[in-house]
Every structure is written in structure tokens, then in C-alpha cells.
């Protein structure tokens, strides 16, 4: 079972390094293999693209968790012409694992809230690896109510392993903080669009995802619990997480087919996402289009549609 994206990237990386050696040799030998090398490189790119089209669910989990993925702050910088971060729950603290504030997207005032993972170990320790504590949900809750006051649409970015599993979070009522968020979002009188940008982990992710539209990037996942947890509980073997990743149907494509998410945006293979202009343009357009559509609705219709959107999810026999 692969531990990170580099394991399934290894053959391509190896081939790349061999080509580099070949290039150096050709200089030493004063010969020219450039046509051949270019050819191999082209085929390598094709193979890799093909490979990325057929990632296993577990490989998608690894990509969803990849530390190189852009964070909420990166997306905010990309999308907002101005953004002001606001802090604190006005009750207890300011949780760096959820950030929020107000910004302008395409000439529209928007409240943005999202999980914030760190870009390195130090930042991740500070941000609790993007696992919110009750303060985080309560800050988000406060900002949502402000968005409602001002009729501002809300954009959320989802990328968290899940809620914080510590004693302090329990002590300060993590379950209460999450349920209040679910309740608040489910009847918020402004449009809400969510973008899953990495891991959608359990209740900690759902708390920011009760939206009119949920967009997933193609290599992200959303899961009731981590594949490791499911494997540990259902199979009594957390090492069989890859099996669970498949059984749980947690990748973007499956969730789109199940009607749980509304749109999947294709990620370019192995490129830093925000460097792909096509990807960035598609994401921007998608968010704008959803906001345009939702903002044109009557508020009570909007809230009714959101209720029905979630109300109908679930499979059973009657």
C-alpha cells in the first residue's frame, strides 16, 4: 500500500533521471540524442497522463492529502481581488485551522471560510494539521451570520483530515460546535458554494459543506471517516485502508455519480495546480457561474432548494 504520491510516481521519476543522464552523456560523447530524448519524454508524458486518468481510489487519497496542494489561503489569493482575514469566535479563541474573512470576487463581496493546513511542519503544528477545534467552527459560525446580515454569498474551502481528536476539543463541545454549523448553514439566507480542495474528512469537513453547490477537484476525496479508521474498525487492520478507499467510494467521480457533489473539476496531472491556467480558469468560471445562478434566486427559494438538496440524499427501501 503506497504511502505517498511518490511511490506511484517512482517509475516516471526514474525514467526522467535516466533521460537526464543520457543528456549529459550525449554532451560528453559529443553526439546528439535530442530527437530520441524528446520522443521518449513525449511518451513519458502520455503514459503519466494515462496513469493519472486511472488512479486507484487509494492513490487519489494520497494525492488529496499531498502537502504540495494549494491551501485555502492560496485559493483566496487567486480568486479575491482584495481579502481581509477576520479572527476569533468572540467566545474563547482564534483557531488557525479554520480561516475566514471577507473579499471581493468578480466585483461581488463574498465571505470566505475554509480549513487551513500548513505548508510545512512548523505551520502544520501551528494549524493543528487543519483539524479544527470548537473555536474554529464558532468563528466560522459568527462569520456566516455576518454574511447573512449583509446578504453576502459564502464560499467555503474544504481540506481537513477531520475534527480534532483531542481532549480539549471534547471539553469545549466539539460536537455542539459542529452541529450548530450544520444547522446554521442549512438555513442560511445567502448562497453557499463549497469547493473540496483536498481531504474532506468526516464531520470536520461536513461542517463547512452544507452548501447549495459542492464542487470537488478531481483528485480530492470526501469520506465519512478516513479509510484507515474504517479499515481499523471494520477489518480490524488499518493497513487495509486502500481496500476501504475503494469500498467507501470517496473519490470525486463516485460522489458525483451518487449525486452528492454537483461538479468535478479536472486537475492537470502532476502540475502545481495554480500554475495551470486552464485549471485556474475553469475553477474561477465555475465559482462565478454558481454564484451568479444562486444570487439570482429568491432567498426563500434558495433556502428551500438547499433543504431539499440534502433532504433527498440517502438510499433505502420503503
Amino acid at each position, binding site marked *: 500500500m503506497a504511502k505517498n504520491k511518490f511511490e506511484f510516481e517512482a517509475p516516471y521519476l526514474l525514467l526522467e533521471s535516466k533521460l537526464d543522464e543520457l543528456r549529459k552523456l550525449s554532451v560528453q560523447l559529443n553526439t546528439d540524442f535530442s530527437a530520441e530524448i524528446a520522443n521518449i519524454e513525449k511518451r513519458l508524458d502520455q503514459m503519466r497522463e494515462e496513469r493519472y486518468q486511472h488512479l486507484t481510489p487509494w492513490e487519489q487519497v494520497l494525492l488529496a492529502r499531498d502537502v504540495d496542494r494549494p491551501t485555502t489561503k492560496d485559493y483566496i489569493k487567486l480568486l479575491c481581488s482584495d481579502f481581509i482575514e477576520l479572527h476569533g469566535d468572540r467566545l474563547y479563541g482564534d483557531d488557525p485551522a479554520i480561516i475566514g474573512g471577507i473579499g471581493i470576487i468578480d466585483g461581488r463581496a463574498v465571505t470566505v471560510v475554509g480549513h487551513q493546513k500548513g505548508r510545512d511542519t512548523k505551520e502544520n503544528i501551528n494549524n493543528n494539521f487543519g483539524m479544527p477545534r470548537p473555536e474554529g467552527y464558532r468563528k466560522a459560525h459568527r462569520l456566516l451570520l455576518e454574511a447573512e446580515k449583509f446578504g453576502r454569498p459564502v464560499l467555503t474551502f474544504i481540506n481537513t483530515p477531520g475534527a480534532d481528536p483531542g481532549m480539549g476539543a471534547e471539553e469545549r463541545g466539539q460536537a455542539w460546535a459542529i452541529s450548530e454549523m*450544520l444547522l446554521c448553514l442549512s438555513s442560511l439566507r445567502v448562497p453557499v458554494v463549497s469547493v473540496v480542495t483536498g481531504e474532506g474528512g468526516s464531520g470536520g469537513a461536513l461542517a463547512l459543506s452544507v452548501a447549495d453547490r459542492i464542487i470537488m477537484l478531481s483528485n480530492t476525496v470526501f469520506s*465519512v471517516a478516513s479509510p484507515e479508521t474504517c479499515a481499523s474498525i*471494520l477489518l480490524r487492520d488499518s493497513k487495509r485502508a486502500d481496500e476501504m478507499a475503494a469500498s467507501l*467510494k470517496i473519490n470525486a467521480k463516485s460522489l458525483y455519480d451518487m449525486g452528492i457533489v454537483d461538479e468535478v473539476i479536472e486537475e492537470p496531472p502532476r502540475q502545481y495546480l495554480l500554475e495551470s491556467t486552464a485549471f485556474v480558469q475553469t475553477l474561477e468560471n465555475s465559482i462565478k457561474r454558481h454564484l451568479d445562478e444562486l444570487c439570482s434566486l429568491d432567498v426563500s427559494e434558495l433556502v428551500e432548494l438547499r433543504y431539499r438538496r440534502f433532504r433527498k440524499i440517502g*438510499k433505502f427501501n420503503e
Partner: protein
Amino acid sequence: MFNKKRGYIDLSNAKKNQAALDSEGNFSCPSCSAWISEAQKIQNNDFCPRCSYHFAVSAWERIHAICDENSFEEWDANVSSVNPLEFPGYEEKLAKAQEETGLIEGIVTGRGSIGGFDVVIGAMDSRFMMGSMGSVVGEKICHAMEKAIQYSLPCIIFCCSGGARMQEGMFSLIQMAKTSAAVGRLHEAGLLYISILTHPTTGGVTASFASLADIIIAETGALIGFTGPRVIQQTTGQILPPGFQRSEYLIKHGMVDLVQPRVEVRSLLIRLLNVHQGGNHG
């Protein structure tokens, strides 16, 4: 099929029925294997007298103990689970749970009266796949709340759950959003909603409809939280203090309104329903 059991689980009548109970024979505590009688179990508020194990109460036992006699009318009795993800082994587990509990799914919902007050009532059953919430549990709760709105009735839910039904994947997680949204509609309709958190109430149920009630009652000694104690200990390496995540801890930390022993929950509900209506019974 439930009438046979009715005799000994009407807890409010525990004392007068005691003689009858002893004759029903003994059974062994699932935790410490002590042999105890039904009477002892009831006298001890469903805790094992030896190891303090908190005996589970089935959904039907709960409903019969709480509702006025013959007042309960079940809804959605035949709503049953499918296997939406074709998850390996899920159908077998469902079949086993149904066989062991005599239930179709992990919650019973319907309409009844408590001390003469009409209510919508739901009771989860921890024996049914650990009281996990899948599509059916979520659907029945939402439907019950919508009917509470339709009939303008208070809504009372007895919670007990190990969390989400993992075998239904995201369908299960979304039930948290769905039931919370239904609570939102109850609130908008100005209806009273009381939840009773019983042992154990954890995971997605605690983080959705269970903690959104107007009045939250925790049963004495119940384990209540989001992350279970084993996971906290494994993940953080912290030793959990005695009483952590128990009802008494929760009330101290401001999360529940009242802590009540199981045998007194019915009378408390009657008082709450009565006060809520300004003592204008009916």
C-alpha cells in the same frame, strides 16, 4: 412480538412489578459476567451492581417505558436499508442485526403520549449495528420531525449511537446535515424539541440532531462525545481522567441542561411538557 417483554421494562412501575420479575430468571452481565436478576438490574437503574456496566435498553423497551400505555403508533416501520455502495459484507451484517434485535433498523419512530401529552417520539437502539446512523435512521428522524411540524407536536428523541454507519459512506455522513436541517425546521415552527442522550451517544449523532435540542437531558453515567475515548487515547497518547465524557462531566462543561437517572426521565419529560404549556394540560 413486543408484548411479552412489556411486563418488566415498564420502569416507572418497576417496584410494584418486582415480585413478578424475579420469577423471570437471571442473566449474566456482558461486562463482568456477574449473574443478576432483572429486578436487581432495574433497582440499580440499569447499571450492573458489580461493575457498573450500563445495560442497553432496546428501542421498544424505551418507548414502552416512556409512553402512556397503548398510546404509541409506529411510523415508517418498514423503511429498510439497502447497500448503496455495494459495501462488502453489509447485507450480512444488516440481516444479523435484524435477526438479533427483531428490528428492521436502528430507530423506532412514531407518535404517542407521555403523561397525556401528545408527542412525536423516536428511540434509537444501540444493539442494531451499534446504533449507527445510516440513510434509514436519518430518513426516519427527518420524517418524524416533519410530521411533528405537520401535527404541531413536541418532538422527543432518545439517542444512542456509536456514530455514522460506515458501510453507507457519504450517504451516512450526509444524514448529519439532513437531520440538522430538519431540526432547523422544527425551530422555525416554534416546536419544542427534547433530546435524551443515553449511553453511549458519540460521533455523528452527537454532532447533529442530538445536540441541537431546546432541552438536552443526559442519562446518568452515559458516555457522550464526538470522538470516542479509545480514539482520543490512541491519537493523543493522553490518559483520560475518570468521568471524562460522562454525563456529569458534560453538565459541568455546560453542554447539557439536565442529568437524570433513567427511571426518572419519564416524570421529568411530563414536567417539562407541562411547564412548556404553562400547566395548561392538553
